[in-house]
């Protein structure tokens, strides 16, 4: 029999007290594991893994708002850019890919109020996150917005509404709780596989369709003002844009309305009239991204944002402290558990004085009884920790599909956070610390006195 088996016997002898104290440790460790799993999922969703583009270009304003609106789709967009600016970007030698996105509409509130993203098919032909391409969940899906009113939907949208390929829906204008419904019906041509990114709760429409929806056309005067404001001194591009606007005025004077069915669903809308909310850009070289970013800083009405930086800032200033607070809280729970282990063992010492005396009389050294008590507290800490670790990961696995359905976060219940590798060594030291005082009591036990007690 070694010291651990003797300690284990003692733990079993006081099974109820031992179980309760181990459970309190388990509770703390379980909470810590769950926090770490969720933090890992949030971190995964809020870092570069969420987007495979180097830059996001949008109207000047808050870089965080641009990222949150265009990548995470949880904030209203800042403002729009002229569609013609996309052409300018696509022709820039530093740009490999530039994909336009237009936001502002949502599915109906009863359909979950998911954000509508007007884009082009190129969006689906590029990686959504480094190394990962979009896949369709349905064999019938095409992953292509071939017709004007085609729609590709994310997995969460499909799950929430029970939608599949062929189903039709309409959308609302302006905000998720708006009652201003567009008349047009969109037909689902593809349901994307779950990605664990905001794409799961997005609905993708043909960019061209966005321009012809009722209420999306701005008054000509307003458009002209915006163009002048955006292009400023760039007289060449401003001249082209204003020329298109003049042509549009002429057509309107003749009674021709763009957006009219007879004119091919407004596909003749001049580019100068169109706007986009953001552009996802992949540059040819890393340096190109830096160069483009710094160029736009000076005198441009657009800005280029590295999607990682604002989110890292958000993580550091907001998510980080919350995580730290939760970790401190779980740490305190474990500390309280440790105190309960201490109290439990310490209280048992008077009852066990005779036991210790017997062991000493049988030849156990002071250091042996010291080690037995220390082993007991570490067994409770490690045992409770192991139990909590298994329960924490088990719960994460069990509830992962539910969390995923509700939030779109992809929880990997068995994902190990580096902090977990230090958890058990820490618990070992912690167990030794809380067992130290009771162990010293055992160490100091007077054998002769203990045997006559």
């Amino acid at each position: 029999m070694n010291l651990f088996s003797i300690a284990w016997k003692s733990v079993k002898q006081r099974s109820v007290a031992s179980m309760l104290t181990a459970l309190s440790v388990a509770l703390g460790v379980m909470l810590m594991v769950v926090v770490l799993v969720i933090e890992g999922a949030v971190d995964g969703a809020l870092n570069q893994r969420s987007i495979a583009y180097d830059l996001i270009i949008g109207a000047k304003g808050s870089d965080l708002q641009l990222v949150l609106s265009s990548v995470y789709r949880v904030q209203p967009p800042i403002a729009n850019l002229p569609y013609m600016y996309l052409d300018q970007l696509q022709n820039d030698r530093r740009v490999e890919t530039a994909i336009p996105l237009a936001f502002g509409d949502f599915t109906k509130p009863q359909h979950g109020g998911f954000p509508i993203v007007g884009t082009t098919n190129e969006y689906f032909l590029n990686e959504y996150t480094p190394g990962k391409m979009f896949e369709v969940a349905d064999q019938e899906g095409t992953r292509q917005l071939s017709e004007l009113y085609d729609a590709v939907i994310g997995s969460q949208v499909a799950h929430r509404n029970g939608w599949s390929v062929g189903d039709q829906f309409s959308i609302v204008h302006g905000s998720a709780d708006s009652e201003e419904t567009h008349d047009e019906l969109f037909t689902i041509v593809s349901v994307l596989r779950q990605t664990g990114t905001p794409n799961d709760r997005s609905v993708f429409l043909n960019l061209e369709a966005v321009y012809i929806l009722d209420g999306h056309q701005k008054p000509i005067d307003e458009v002209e003002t915006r163009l002048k404001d955006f292009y400023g001194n760039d007289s060449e591009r401003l001249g082209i844009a204003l020329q298109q606007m003049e042509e549009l005025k002429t057509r309107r004077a003749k009674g021709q309305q763009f957006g009219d069915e007879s004119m091919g669903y407004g596909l003749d809308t001049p580019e100068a009239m169109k706007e986009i909310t953001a552009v996802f850009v992949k540059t040819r070289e890393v340096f190109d991204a830096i160069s483009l970013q710094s160029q736009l800083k000076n005198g441009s009405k657009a800005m280029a944002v590295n999607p990682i930086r604002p989110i890292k800032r958000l993580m550091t200033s907001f998510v980080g402290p919350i995580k730290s607070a939760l970790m401190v809280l779980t740490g305190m729970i474990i500390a309280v558990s440790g105190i309960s282990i201490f109290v439990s063992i310490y209280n048992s010492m008077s009852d066990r004085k005779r036991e210790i005396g017997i062991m000493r009389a049988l030849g156990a050294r002071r250091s042996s009884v010291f080690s037995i008590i220390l082993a007991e507290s570490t067994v409770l800490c490690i045992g409770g920790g192991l139990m909590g670790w298994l329960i924490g990961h088990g719960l994460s696995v069990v509830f992962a599909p539910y969390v995923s359905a509700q939030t779109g976060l992809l929880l990997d219940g068995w994902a190990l956070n580096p902090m977990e590798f230090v958890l058990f060594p820490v618990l070992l030291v912690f167990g030794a610390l809380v067992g130290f005082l009771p162990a010293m009591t055992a160490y100091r036990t007077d054998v002769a006195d203990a045997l006559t007690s």
Partner: protein
Amino acid sequence: MSLLLENVRKSYREPSGHRLPVLGISRYELAQGEQAALVGSSGGGKTTLLNVISGILAPDSGKVVVDGKDIAPLPEVVRDRFRAVKIGFVFQTFNLLPAFTALENVLLGMSFSGRGVDRAFAISLLERVGLEKRLDHTPQRMSVGEQQRVSVARSLANKPSLLLADEPTANVDPANQDLILNLIRDTCKENKVTLLMVTHAMDVANKFDRLDKLADFNDPQAAYQGAAT
């Protein structure tokens, strides 16, 4: 010589600060394999004597030679190991650990000897005391007599040269008293273990060939007065 006490003195410090002399033994010895009963009045120092012989307590002065080795000057940690290996103990109240089975209680005695546990020998000891069917029983599931038999088996687990028994039959019912006493004496004889049994029961003490009265060779007052002069 299995046990030799020479000029052994032991006193306790009272709360007032004065020393209370308990032992003052000029010479006491037991030959190898000898069996002796030691009788004495309550509070006369019997238990202190056993604690000094076993090394649980260090004497104030004198020699305590067990199996040829004077343990009195040894540090406590060495005396602990010596006790585990050379001395067996049978207590009045058995002192079995309640969470351990009969076999585990015997193995526990071996655990502290530093020589490893010999499970087969532990089982043979329990068989010798008639408990072969009680190996996995915890003390609560055994009778008083059975518990004391486990205690006897445990005391012999490390093949000691000296067995100290502190009123081993005092808590046993009369029907089992002779059984326990004979068991201790017989197993000691079989294993050539020297036996010193402390008792206050004269009927038990009279069964021994050698009967020593503590008061006959222990005079603490004189020992300490002598030291003072």
